[in-house]
């Protein structure tokens, strides 16, 4: 049976998405620790289907500023992936990556901006590779685009661009253990169009 919107996903579909989330997060942690040359610990991710307003609230409310890195997915799967990180975590990643200098997210240099874009690229490729490997589908992510702004303004973008029937989003919540062992949240949004979601589920043997 074809899915018409994300509300119709059942437990079996969710399990598959969780598995994608697990593998993706594992890959992402490995890539990130290679990039930073530091051990990065990631807790087991939570995968939920939420509507846009709930995602906005989960991210600290509409006016909370976060760093967003967006990639458009083309190929067999059409959609949008967005990676959202707290400014403090971005600053500490950049300081580790670029060596010591204090980073202000409101005033990023070109180098810092492109480093963020690369972090997003690594993180999101980890997930898109997980999907591609599990499903044998061909996925071509675009060059990442970076924006730092209020989450409310960022989150309507995937919904509008994909033209969803409903405004549900696949929300993958990652908790990292930071360098001082503090917990840091970084979240991934996966917004495929409905045809792509059906194609994905079909090639994974469900639906």
């Amino acid at each position, binding site marked *: 049976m074809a899915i018409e919107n994300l509300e119709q996903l059942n437990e079996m579909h969710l399990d598959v998405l969780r598995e994608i989330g697990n593998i993706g997060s594992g890959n992402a942690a490995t890539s990130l620790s290679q990039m930073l040359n530091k051990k990065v610990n990631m807790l087991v991710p939570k995968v939920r289907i939420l509507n*846009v*307003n709930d995602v*906005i609230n989960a991210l600290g*409310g*509409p*006016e909370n*500023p976060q760093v*967003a890195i*967006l990639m*458009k997915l083309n190929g067999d799967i059409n959609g949008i992936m967005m990676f959202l990180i707290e400014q403090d975590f971005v600053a500490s990643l950049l300081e580790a990556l670029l060596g010591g200098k204090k980073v202000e997210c*409101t005033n990023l240099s070109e180098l810092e901006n492109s480093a963020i874009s690369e972090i997003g690229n690594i993180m999101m490729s980890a997930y898109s590779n997980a999907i591609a490997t599990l499903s044998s589908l061909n996925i071509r992510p*675009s*060059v990442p*685009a970076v*924006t*730092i*702004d*209020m*989450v*409310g*303004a*960022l*989150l*309507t*973008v995937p919904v*509008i*661009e994909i033209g969803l029937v409903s405004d549900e989003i696949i929300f993958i919540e990652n908790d990292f253990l930071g360098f001082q062992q503090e917990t840091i949240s970084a979240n991934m949004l996966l917004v495929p169009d409905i045809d792509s979601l059906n194609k994905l589920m079909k090639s994974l043997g469900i639906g």
Partner: protein
Amino acid sequence: MENLIRIGISEMQAAINPASFVTFALGSCIGICLYDKTTKTGALGHIMLPEAPPNKPNLKIDCYADTCIPHMLETMKKLGSRKDNIVAKIAGGAKMFEVADDSTFGAVGARNIEAVKIVLRRYQIKIVAADVGANYGRTVYFYTETGAMLVQSFAKGNKTF
């Protein structure tokens, strides 16, 4: 603040003074403030898309410029406003992400601005202030006492119109 009315995405409300409205974090969406200074009546709508699709059941009419604006005018009329006295201030319509090699990505902000202008012209409502376009999010406060629209942003400061 007394009687602050929060307008969510694809919502609209109207009220007579004293009242204030807020809608948070407009990206490519547009906040439309309509104001009648003779009766101090205001309405704020938060639209997401330019045009309502035809024949769609359970349509959220306040989601679209072409259905939200007439709904706002009608609601203000019920509160005693005359269309001739109503003016508009608008904010939003940004392009939040610049995706390389894809010029159509994020074009909805510009399409929203265009649609809002066309629909307001159709109803002969004058736009007296606009803070639209560019690449950043905006929170809009709107006050029925003065008709002022306050636009706040994360990185570009605050402006009053």
